Each structure stands twice: as C-alpha cells, then as structure tokens.
C-alpha cells in the first residue's frame, strides 16, 4: 500500500473546504493538531484568497442566508446560535469571521464555517456629558489590524436631543468605541475629527444599510453625504484599525461630480460607487490604497428594460478568472458584469429572499476563541462533565431500588 508523505497530505488538506477539515480533525490527533495550527489556518486562508475558492455570499435581510459563490444555486439559511430570532444584523466580515449585532450593546463574532461563536463583552453607550440626549443611529465596522493580527469592531453612536425635536440642527459629538478581540475589551476613542458630528443623514444611511463600514487597506470606510446647507461636500471617512485614528481618503477625479457616493470593496481594494440619478452607475477601484492617482474606473452600468432604475449597486466579487464582477443591485438582484463585453447579465438565486444587503465572505478556519481560552473552556467542560457524572452516580445510589414485577 503506497503511503503519501505528510507534506503531500498537507498540500491535499489545503485544498479542502472548511467543513471537511473540521470533520477530518477526527482522523487522528496529529491531524487535529495540524488543522488547528495557526500556520495551517493562515496558509489555507491565503490559498482560498489567491485561488478564489471557498467564497460565499451572505444575504442580510430579515433573516440571514448564505450561498456558495462557485455554484450560486440556492441560498440556505445561515446556521448560527440565536438563529431563532430575526433582526440579527451582520455588519462586517473579515477572513471568514462575521460580526453580529444582536443589540447595540450586544455584539458577537461568528465563524460560520467552523460554527465558533463568541460574544463580546457588553458595552454601555455614554452620551456626551452634561447634555440631555439619547442615542440615535449607530454605525458599525469590523476588520483586522494586520500588524497585531487582532480583529476589531468599531461602534460609532450618534445622539439626538431628548426633547423630541426632529433633526433640527443639534449635532452632538459621537461616541466612538473600539473592541479588540485579543484584549477582549472596549476602548473609547476620544480624538474625533470635527466633521464626524455631521455624518449621519436619515435618508442616506438608513436605506441600503450604509451604516456598515467597508474594510480596505486596514481601514474601515463610511460615506458622509454632502450637507449643502453647511457647505460640506461628500466625504469618505476612514478609521485606521492599526493606529485607531480617523483618516481622510481621496475620491476619484470624476468628470461629472453630480453623483451620490457609496463605497464598496473588491478583493481588498476600496471601490467608489458613483450613482448618477439612478440612471447610471460608475464603479471606480483604488488600485493602490490612499493613492489618488490609482483610482481607475472599472465598470459603468446603465439602467435596462429589465432593471429600469438603479437605486443601489454594490460590487461583491470577481469571478474565478477575473473576467466578470458580481454585482448586487437594488438590494434584490444579482448580476454578472462582463468586463470584456461590458455587459450585465442577471443571475437568479434560489430561495425566498425578499430584500437584502449582500457581502462576500471566505470560508476559513480562523478561530474566534484564542487557544488559551479554548483550553480553559475545554478543561472546565470536562470538570463539569465529571462533576455531573459523579452527582448522577450518587443520586442513583441514594435512591435505592424499587422492584417492579
């Protein structure tokens, strides 16, 4: 019987989907250690990204669904703890981890491919001191600080005056907090740019889930729409996950500046989505992060008879051979855009989906728990099991027998 070397077996394992690898932890203890090892996890993830495999699309509507990008057949409900409740939001993804909003103070991280779930500690919302106001809209973002290999969540809370006036010109400082997975703790950011207070606009942000930050270049991005009455242009607002500071990001130099701006991401490159009156939409890609000259127009979509209005458009992912781009349109449809032929073709995905926001995520083995915490949990679990078994045995012995004939 031929026996393959461990090198070859490892190479074969890299090519497997995550659920198979989770199952194969049962092969043997050395295989389990291999699959759990950070080097293997990292190499598997890098390979998936490079070969464009193990990609999925999550559909964020009232309920959460997921569809495999390779097959694009039927969307299946996403399995996760608490999946009996509707209204859980996914506000970001990174390296296969999804960030969940259960409530504004209750967030969690989940890896749907390994089904590891972890709540972050509760975080209070602190209104600006001395003001009578209540929390209003909340912005979120999730991403990785590459330098420290830490995953971080950003929460930005806008406040409204308590005496229920409408959006009547009171702009309070936002509360910005960052959660670090490594430290398992929240930290308040005190250095805020002055323009931040003007960020939230009711019609812009509430529609189409624009409150979720877009991750590119280690920075989370949101759009601040223009405030004509204050003479403010639209702006891409960035939060650097490494330095934990706000940064400004240049927009592309468009000939026609009469557009509604949105941001997206394609394979880690920031995209600017310029919507001209819902009639046509241009998508630009910033090939080199923060280099204004590297903004390149990738595609231009016009409304068609089938899709006769473009209220919202977002690029999701390239096809395997990079000849097409998958687009989410109007929170209801998917379409392939052929980069060569410059044409759009609708894609039908099975499942009763309603309206949704979509996001691409990769299947990975990245853990939500760090190993020490898992070892402790495991140890506690075993202690619990032993305690319970002892109690069961004691209960049984103390009951005595009752013969039934």
């Amino acid at each position, binding site marked *: 019987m031929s026996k393959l070397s461990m090198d070859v077996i490892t190479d074969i394992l890299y090519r497997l989907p995550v659920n198979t690898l989770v199952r194969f932890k049962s*092969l043997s203890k050395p295989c389990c250690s291999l699959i759990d090892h950070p080097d293997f996890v990292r190499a598997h993830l890098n390979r998936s990204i490079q070969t464009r495999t193990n990609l999925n699309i999550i559909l964020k509507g009232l309920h959460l669904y997921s569809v495999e990008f390779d097959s694009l057949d039927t969307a299946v409900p996403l399995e996760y703890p608490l999946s009996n409740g509707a209204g859980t939001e996914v506000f970001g993804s990174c390296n296969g981890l999804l960030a969940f909003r259960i409530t504004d103070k209750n967030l969690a991280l989940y890896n749907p491919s390994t089904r590891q779930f972890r709540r972050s500690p509760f975080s209070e919302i602190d209104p600006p001191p001395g003001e009578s106001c209540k929390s209003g809209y909340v912005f979120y973002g999730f991403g990785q600080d590459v330098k420290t290999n830490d995953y971080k969540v950003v929460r930005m809370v806008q406040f409204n005056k308590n005496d229920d006036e409408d959006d009547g010109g009171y702009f309070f400082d936002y509360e910005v907090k960052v959660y670090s997975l490594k430290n398992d703790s929240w930290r308040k950011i005190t250095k805020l740019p002055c323009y931040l207070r003007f960020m939230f606009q009711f019609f812009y942000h509430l529609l189409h889930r624009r409150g979720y930050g877009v991750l590119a270049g280690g920075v989370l991005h949101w759009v601040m729409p223009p405030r004509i009455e204050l003479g403010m242009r639209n702006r891409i607002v960035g939060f650097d996950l490494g330095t934990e500071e706000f940064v400004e990001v240049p927009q592309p130099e468009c000939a026609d500046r009469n557009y509604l701006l949105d941001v997206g991401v394609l394979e880690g490159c920031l995209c600017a989505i310029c919507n001209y009156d819902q009639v046509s939409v241009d998508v630009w890609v910033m090939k080199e992060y923060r280099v204004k000259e590297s903004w390149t127009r990738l595609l231009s979509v016009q409304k068609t008879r089938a899709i006769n209005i473009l209220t919202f458009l977002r690029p999701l992912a390239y096809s395997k051979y990079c000849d097409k781009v998958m687009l989410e349109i109007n929170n209801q449809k998917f379409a392939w855009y052929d980069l060569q032929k410059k044409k759009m073709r609708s894609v039908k995905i099975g499942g009763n989906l309603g309206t949704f926001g979509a996001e691409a995520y990769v299947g990975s083995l990245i853990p939500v728990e760090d190993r020490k915490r898992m070892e402790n949990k495991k140890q506690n679990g075993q202690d619990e099991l032993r305690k319970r078994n002892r109690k069961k045995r004691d209960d049984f012995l103390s009951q005595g027998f009752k013969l039934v004939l």
Partner: protein
Amino acid sequence: MSAATAKTKKIVLRADDNHEFEVDEAIAMEFGTVRTFFEDNPDATEEPIPLLNVSSKCLSTIIEYCKSHLAFRARDSSSSVEDEAKAYDVELVKALDNESLKEMILAANYLNMKDLLDMLNQAVADRIKNKSVEYVRRFFGIENDYSPEEEAEVRAQNEWAFEGVDPDDD
C-alpha cells in the same frame, strides 16, 4: 534550442523493473529530476536514466500525460484548448483507482513535476472531500490514536460537519 537540428534527440528512461522507454528530449525535460540531472551532467545523454521509484505503469502514463500537454501548449492558449486539457486530466484521473492515484502522486513527487503533482493532489482533494473519516484513514494509512471517549468528544463538538457524508463504497 538550435533551429538547425532536424533530428529530435531521444532520451531513454528506465523504470524500476528495468523496462526502458525512449522519449523525445522535450518530453524528458518535463521531468524535473531529469532536467536537473542534465543540467549537472550535460554530456550524459547516451545512458538510460534510471528512475528507481517509478513503476512502468506510472512511467508510461506520465509520458502520455507529458506528450498530450506539450501538444496542447503548442496549439495556443485559448480557453477552448484549456478546457480540452482539463478534460484530458479528468479522464486520466477517472481511470485511476485510489492505489494507482497514490502511486502516481509518489512518482510525480519523486520526478519533481509540479503541474502534474498539483493536478493529482487536487484530484485527491476532490475525491475525498465528502468521504467519511474511516475512508480517509484507510486512504492515507492514518492510524487512529484517539481513545473511544476522545473520538466521541471530538465528533460531538463538530456533529454538524458529519452530515451529508458519502457512504463508504470501498
């Protein structure tokens, strides 16, 4: 490569059972170990090259593989030719049972043939992706060093990953 050479040079490869195969130089150069050998010994082209760990069966299949892929590459790099090459690979692998597939991988590894090894490893991954743990242990010759309790615990932790697994047919 000199344009003046009308005669294609032949190289003899010897399998582990001493069976000899004569191939065009271009084909022999697809074998990483052979190429390296000639780079180090440019004059040793008359002798048969011993490939100690490769059976005749594997060697003849690998030679066919190289011939076909060289022909594909010579045509052009259009996507239709790529599809044909892929279809060829699929047929080649289909004809291999698990044991032969492993032998081919060992041969490709020994001969330092990266593309072939890549293709074969992917074929194994595709073949075992939905298989049970027992099947894969047998395939790789992996010894189960879990105690029954330990194995039960690992399985219980990841119960969902055991759904939809192909029944064992071997």
